[in-house]
């Protein structure tokens, strides 16, 4: 299988990336080169094989650990927002989204 420039543009949109025409062209050739290697993998018969999404499962039972659903007083809003590009009164500012 081979991607074309429309595919690259669609994926870039999904990935929230703006690519220059030169970048798109380079990306197209590099990604197609990559998928040539991937074809080998697609040919493998994996019927009946359980996927291994996480290596922890090979050592101990994977159970999602959830903390108590209570407010954590240790969370410091000011410290967490110190690297935000734009904040106002403890809120993140973004461009207008509602007309």
């Amino acid at each position, binding site marked *: 299988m081979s991607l074309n420039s429309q595919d690259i543009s669609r994926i870039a949109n999904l990935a929230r990336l703006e690519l220059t025409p030169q970048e798109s062209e380079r990306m197209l050739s590099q990604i197609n080169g990559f998928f040539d*290697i991937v074809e080998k993998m697609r040919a493998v018969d994996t019927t009946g094989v359980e996927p291994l999404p996480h290596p922890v499962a090979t*050592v101990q039972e994977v159970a999602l650990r959830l903390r108590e659903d209570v407010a954590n007083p240790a969370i410091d809003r000011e410290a967490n927002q110190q690297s935000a590009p734009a904040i106002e009164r403890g809120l993140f500012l973004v461009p207008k989204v509602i007309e």
Partner: protein
Amino acid sequence: MTQLHDLTVAQLAQKLKAREVSAVEAAGHFLGRVKAQADLGAFLATNEDATLAQARAADARIAAGEAAPLLGVPIAHKDIFVTQDFPSTAGSKMLEAYRSPFDATVVSKLAEAGAVSLGKLNCDEFAMGSSNENSAYQVVKNPWDKSRIPGGSSGGSAVAVAARLAPAVTGTDTGGSIRQPASFCGITGIKPTYGRASRYGMIAFASSLDQAGPMARTAEDCALLLSALCGPDLDRDSTSLDVPAEDFTRGLDGSVAGLRIGVPKEFFGPGLSDDVRSALEGALKQYEALGARIVEVSLPRTELAIPVYYIIAPAEASSNLSRFDGVKFGHRARQYGDLLDMYKKTRAEGFGDEVKRRIMIGTYVLSHGYYDAYYLQAQKIRRMIADDFQQAFKQCDLIAGPVAPSVAWKLGEHGNDPLADYLADIFTLPGSLAGLPGMSIPAGFGVGGMPVGLQLIGNYLQEGRLLNAAHKFQQATDHHLRQPEGF
């Protein structure tokens, strides 16, 4: 006279404990070396005030009679770990101005053990790369030959140790990023079993693969650091193993007589360069001389590890890196229209080529209609790769082989061909996908006098056995004692 930077961690810790040298002196000595060797590009940030304050605190703990294992020992951290005292950029322009409100668990555990932080080490952007040419800030040069790469993504970490800018450092390994730069720079590095070291505060690349570990000159030093940085972190890291911390220095003097070392035939095929093959054959002979038994094993899906890894890791990266949207932290584009335009321009400006490429691959393989064919298929083969290791471990106690098919290549040699880098990861990827512990130890020298590493892979939670085997090898050889000229 032996200088401070010639000492191993174990030797330096001893001198600090005996108060023959103070932590402030040690920190000052290494900070001076970091400054003098700035052209290597190994460090991204130092903060002399913070380092010396930590050193003074360590001296106070020593004076109070405390006996923490790394008390006063200077170390440096890969810039993928967040730190309060230093910037945390992950080698990316996206995080140029980022300051973390907390320390990564690995950083705080080493600080508890008494280590003094010298600063942050250069790495490939978001730990994506095998050459350390993908840092947004500066190229890192290999001290054995400055025209060559140090390996990646923990290239700054490996160079700091090889050039004696720090006695030991932290690194992270997703597909080989501790083992490969350790091999290329002639040092020792270990990636523990996935989940043994907390990922809390490690800027995430591929969550099911990323693992922290130490890099130093000797296996003994790696054992000291690993003992400090491992341990459960169940409240903060949902992928942390519920396995108690261990003192890995305790088993170092065990014998390797009778140890069965498996050599996968697929690791010694035609893709391996002659100089690396010859160095490794010498290392295996050395193990035989120590009483170990070499047995041939098979890892039949070795070649498949490349496509499987380069599907899974980008898929996870595309998800993890979606947090960089110009809203909560990091870079935001100056000029944009609406919110979507802000996201796209911010990410276009903030990410480098390799990161964009992996986000694109990951987005594609997770997109509607392609998930089963690529991502799910890759996870199934991942299971088969993990099973192959378990088959092999029925015949052997640990596995040995090359870390990379060649010695470190020239800077820019792979130019615009990322596939060349991907293919060079073939021997480290299988162990990463399975989540197994692995290490690289200096095993000889190849073309151009460049170091060659021997990879040792253990079964789950067998870090102690790996470190013991590595230590015994280092007691019988001097490859790890050689140092690049001028350092």
